[in-house]
């Protein structure tokens, strides 16, 4: 039973159907249930009966019923010293906006907006292979630095060909300059791909958090009608801990058709990272158990639900903070590889190499 009897979904502000259709649908259903359960006088659904004279009868505690019990209704024509006040199952829950805050926090992110920026970062020069870039000659050249995205462009060899008729000390300095220039450019392109990789993880963390929140929300919706006796029908699901996504690998450029290197779309990487990427990850991300126990009081189930989704929100926040540190650490490591020494007797530096700094000893 997705919706309360005779009710329709009530959309939740900030959870848009075009961006998060599944989450928006489930949130709409949960919102309808909350509205229904908060007005037990309008329906026959779950409710709490509170004894008004506990000293006169055997019942001295609130009891929750999955449906209306006419003999216990205070307004029923029933002469009984035991009188009950009918309450909403959520009467002591406080702000019901808490049901949706975590979901709202992970909603509203637009992959297509982030993707337009991401695309610009996944266009390289030396890291790209294109059949129109023909390599000439077989001159002996230094190996490029070992980067995750390797040098594919033939410039290193072609520039030897370019200078082959040039015999002078300047040509020797040019050899050194070209070597350092190409290394610097290669590493810079790799740095930009690292930024792009972190954008994928950023989007993936928020997407995964949204999925997990939806799963718990769906479990909450399913428990609203109190379909099973307490203790039965507890919801359990293992899921990847969203903070584990920080360490998941992704590859932002790849060999396309005809030997042309292309940038991979963010949406494709996102699906890969959250599907096969998780299964085949070198370092398996830790798992997180999503639990919702079927308790006696629905309000206690709701409290556990709110605690669960708020934890997912906090985990997502922690994951994004970890991305911040991870990005800086990875880039710092790459930048150290850019160190070069223009003159044999000179000092090393990590500035962009210029030919003038290599000329003459």
């Amino acid at each position: 039973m997705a919706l309360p009897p005779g009710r329709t979904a009530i959309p939740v502000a900030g959870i848009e159907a075009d961006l998060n259709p599944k989450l928006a649908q489930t949130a709409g259903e949960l919102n309808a249930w909350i509205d229904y359960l908060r007005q037990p006088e309008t329906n026959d659904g779950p409710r709490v009966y509170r004894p008004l004279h506990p000293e006169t009868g055997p019942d001295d505690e609130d009891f929750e019923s999955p449906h209306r019990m006419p003999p216990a209704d205070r307004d029923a024509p029933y002469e009984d010293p035991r009188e009950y006040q009918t309450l909403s199952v959520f009467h002591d829950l406080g702000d019901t906006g808490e049901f949706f805050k975590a979901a709202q926090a992970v909603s509203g992110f637009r992959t297509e907006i982030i993707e337009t920026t991401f695309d610009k970062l996944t266009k390289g020069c030396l890291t790209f292979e294109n059949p129109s870039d023909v390599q000439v000659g077989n001159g002996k050249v230094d190996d490029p630095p070992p980067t995750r995205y390797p040098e594919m462009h033939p410039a290193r060899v072609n520039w030897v060909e370019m200078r082959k008729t040039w015999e002078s000390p300047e040509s020797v300095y040019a050899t050194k300059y070209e070597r350092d220039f190409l290394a610097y450019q290669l590493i810079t392109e790799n740095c930009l791909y690292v930024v792009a990789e972190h954008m994928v993880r950023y989007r993936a963390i928020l997407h995964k958090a949204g999925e997990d929140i939806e799963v718990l929300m769906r479990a909450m919706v399913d428990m609203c009608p109190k379909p099973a006796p307490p203790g039965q029908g507890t919801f359990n699901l293992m899921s990847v801990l969203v903070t584990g996504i920080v360490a998941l690998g992704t590859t932002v450029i790849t060999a396309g058709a005809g030997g042309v290197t292309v940038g991979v779309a963010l949406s494709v990487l996102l699906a890969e990272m959250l599907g096969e990427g998780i299964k085949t990850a070198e370092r398996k991300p830790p798992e997180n158990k999503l639990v919702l126990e079927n308790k006696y009081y629905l309000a206690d189930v709701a409290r556990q639900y709110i605690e669960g989704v708020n934890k997912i929100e906090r985990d997502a926040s922690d994951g994004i903070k970890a991305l911040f540190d991870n990005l800086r650490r990875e880039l710092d490591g790459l930048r150290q590889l850019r160190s070069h020494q223009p003159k044999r007797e000179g000092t090393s530096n990590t500035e962009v190499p210029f030919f003038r700094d290599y000329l003459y000893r």
Partner: protein
Amino acid sequence: MGEHMPDQEHARTQVYQLSPSHMEVAIQEFLTPVIDRLATIGSGFTAAHGEVKAAHDNETPGWFGGEGHSDIRFAVSSFLNEVEYQLSELVEDQSQLIDSLTNYREGLLGHIDWIRQTEANNVARFQAISRDLDELRW
């Protein structure tokens, strides 16, 4: 261009060999396309940096989600601030790399000009000597 030219001291003491036409064509074939490609991707990086900066400064919807308990918004803001900073550094690096390679090309073309000029001067000198010898012969 002049900074890459052999100075007078070196020019006097060092032997140069260079095929100007070979190197000129090779520059056009192998160096200029790389500079052009770097300029193209550099424009993309610059645009990407501007987009991230605008997203951070304006808390642009799409990059930012809803309010929630605010934790995620703060985290996203910090993350985008870091991305913006890193991209600004990398965009500057890329810009300097383009300048560096453009500068290098100018240096190589400068050598070609210098060789051509030297050869032209030598030819003129030999022709002058030849003329002098011819005159002496008369």
